[in-house]
């Protein structure tokens, strides 16, 4: 494992851990800037910690929209996330616990 993970990365991973998400989904749930989210996703996918999958074409066809790309956490990603969390705990850094609440107002 390379460098220690930053807060934004851990937040993005936490969201993905709870729900399989697409890009703007994560932006809405975390309040991070889209640029940050996209580059974080690319980096995590190269490391093999998250796994990007294209939505089933039939679903997209039915809704007459382009196929979305969903991201889920891999087993290695889960391990890395737990390590990072416990490190934050040691350092006394609190992660936003109400990430899901951010969704509440989203109307989804």
């Amino acid at each position: 494992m390379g460098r220690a993970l930053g807060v934004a990365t851990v937040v993005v991973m936490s969201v993905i851990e709870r729900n399989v998400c697409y890009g703007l989904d994560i932006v809405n749930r975390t309040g991070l800037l889209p640029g940050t989210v996209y580059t974080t996703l690319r980096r995590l996918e190269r490391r093999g910690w998250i796994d990007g999958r294209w939505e089933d074409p039939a679903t997209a066809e039915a809704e007459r929209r382009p196929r979305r790309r969903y991201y889920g956490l891999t087993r290695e990603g889960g391990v890395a996330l737990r390590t990072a969390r416990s490190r934050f705990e040691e350092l006394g850094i609190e992660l936003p616990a109400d990430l899901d609440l951010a969704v509440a107002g989203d109307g989804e």
Partner: protein
Amino acid sequence: MTPGWPTDPATRWSRRLIGVVAGLVPGALRAERRAEWEAELWHLRATPSNRGELVRFLSGVVWDAVSEWKEGWRMESMLQDVRYALRTLRRSPGFAAAAIVTLALSIGASTTLFSIVEEAVLTEPPYPEPDRLVVVDQLFQPAGEEMRPSLWSYPRYVAFTDEATAFAELGGYAARTMTLTELGAPEIVSVEAVTPSLLPMLGASARLGRLFGPEEEDAGGPVMNAVVSSGFWERRMGRTPNAVGTIVILDRLRFQVVGVVEEGYEGLGGTAEVWIPFSSLRQVEDPTITEDPWNQYFHVLGRLMPDATIEGAAEEARVFGGRIMERWPPPPGAENMKSSLGVVRFADARGNAGSKTSMVALFTAVLLVLLIATANLAGLLLARGAARRTEAAVRVSLGAGRVRLLRQLLTESLTLAFLGGLLGLGLADFGIGAVGRWLSESLGTAGGRGLEFLDPEALTIDWRVFGFALALTAGVGLLAGLLPAWQTSATDPGEGLRGGRTTIGSRRSFLGLGSRGAMIVAQVAIAIVLLAGASLMMRTTLNLERVDLGFERERMLTAMYSLSPADEAAGIDPAVFHSEVVERVRELPGVIAASAGEVPMGGPTWRTLVLGSEGRPELTPAHHVWTRIQPVSDGHLTLLGADLLEGRDIERTDDESSERVVVLGRSAVEELFPNGRPLGQRVQLAWPGFEEQGATVVGVVEDMRLDQPGAAPERLAFVSMRQGAQPETGLLIRTAGAPEAILPSVEAELGKVGPELALTSAMSMETRAAAATIRPRVLTLLLGFFAAVALFLVAVGLYGTIAYVVAQRRPELGLRASLGAGRVSLLVLVLRQGLGVTLVGIVAGVGGSLWATRFLAGLVFGTGTTDPAGLLAVSAGLFLVALIAAYVPARSGTRVDPAIALRAE
């Protein structure tokens, strides 16, 4: 599949932007990213959102695209650079081939030598905890001479084992060859006599049976047990599981095999097949061999205690060694010796100082050639760089960054180096086997302690050698590429595109040649150092070949054999036996003459004390003189072709019943009879059969060089075999035809005389003499080869430089020509530049070689390490080569038509 896209301008505009920025993403990912962004955009447009959100999203997309572009650049452009480099190299195959072959040769040679140096000098001995393994040397210093290494006796060894505290283990070994007679033809096998402690100390273990133990400790009688190697077990015993208990016959004595050593252990000399305990030597050699404190015959190894230092051990050994003379009073004649013990790290005891110096000299030579090759490659790249200034300028003006350009050029030199390195590794793979065997033969023999110097089997391209080659390749590529790359990339696009060149009045350092001049100076200097070394070694080889050995080596077959104590016990008298062999061989067709005596250059030698001489009445046992002595058959000196100065050769009538006689060499006479007239006078010899009565001097011969041709002649004495023979002897046979052709009939005659015996080391005297000088000859050959390559590279480098300079100065030369300068004056102008740097290089090289050739001291013969005539010749030769290399391009370059040259400006 067509999604229903909203048609508002913001969405259309956003989709167009996504299409544009997707172009930044590397090809493989482009479509995927674009689809993802579009899906996201669709989601954004389909849900209520404000303009700010759209802007944030779009800038996120741009950011994402840019970082994908950066990532792709990192991954891809390296490959792209390599592809580009390969393409450029294909366009100039001549340049590429020259560079790659040069690099392959020098990287191949360096890697080959590195693998050998690694094995011989750097690799730890293959024993457990090699850094605690030491050799304990017995040292003696006869009065008026230097302290020199000697051998241990068993009682002293036992005392030392009891008293020494710095050593966890100690063990003794003595290398022997014995005749194996059973199961087929007699064969000579390599045997090591050892103390029971030795094999376990070196990590050997038994695959069958056991190694030596308490049973084989000396208990006052011979223990005739043996341990054999896996190779012997396979070769001679057919891998029988019942090997333990088998009897093998060595030197006609029965040994019982008690164990087979695990595969891979081949003894300290690397060739042993059988191990026997010291106590068996009581029967093999001498019943008192383990009791007589002055019967010295073995070396001692030790393993230091974990907490002991080598200095502490050495001090303890020195104290013990200093008291040897008082504890064990020496035999008469040796009372005035000083004694000591020395401790040497095992790794340092392998080979001798000379072998290691040769290795280092060769390795240095090859690295110097590599340096020249690097400088040459740099020169070539520099010239190409200059030729490609326009290309560079175009690329810079199109927006290529200076770093980008630098990287491209470095990639090019690294690609060249890599191709050269690959080829060089192949060459090394081929060369390691050949050169390794050659060097181990020529350098390994002179160790003195019977320790293996270099195991040719162990020479392979292992990870260390591979790493070395890789580092070398990378280093060469970077070094050769950096300078020209920097210079080329420091391009002002304007100047490059205008086609501007350094023309008239440009001022550059180093006689106007810039960094290329500096490189030529370095190359010339290095070549001079190499040539000086090669010329020294060549002179040494010539001197060695011209040395008058004092005997004629042409058409002479030499061989040895040895009677065993068992033969003597069976009543065979060596004197009678040897005489009969000689008589029979003399009768063979094709034999002109035959005799028994010491075989020069490789045979066993004996030395004895001369305890008194009528020529020096003051000579008492306390002021003895050491002399090399050999028992010979009649006619031996005549057969050798020795120069008989006075008196006569040993004759048939000099037998047991007649007066003891001796023939002395000139140096011995000068020592023993300072006033001359030795004939008829008597000397007292401590030689078996001569102790009771003195020997009468009946002849004087010119000195002979019986060992290395380069060694100083020794004092020599020849006595009649019939008056004091040894069980071991050499056979010398002068033949009418090719010496080796007679060997089978000689072996047949030997078989007829008596017990089964094998001839050892049968070869012509010419072969023997060649083997004795192989070290300087190999050094000469290799140094000469490297020097020749260096000289060639210098010539190529100089040629290239002058051709380049002439091309560059063409407008200036044209201008001068149009102003009336003659061709000769133009030629001189150009040559002066090239030869100027050559001269500077020669001066630097001569200085360097005065320092560097000192390391060849001890390897040269008949010349000092500073050889003014040789240096002068080398310098003149190099200057001549430089003149030709510079003249050819200068001549064609100065043949300019002023009009054409100036038009180009």
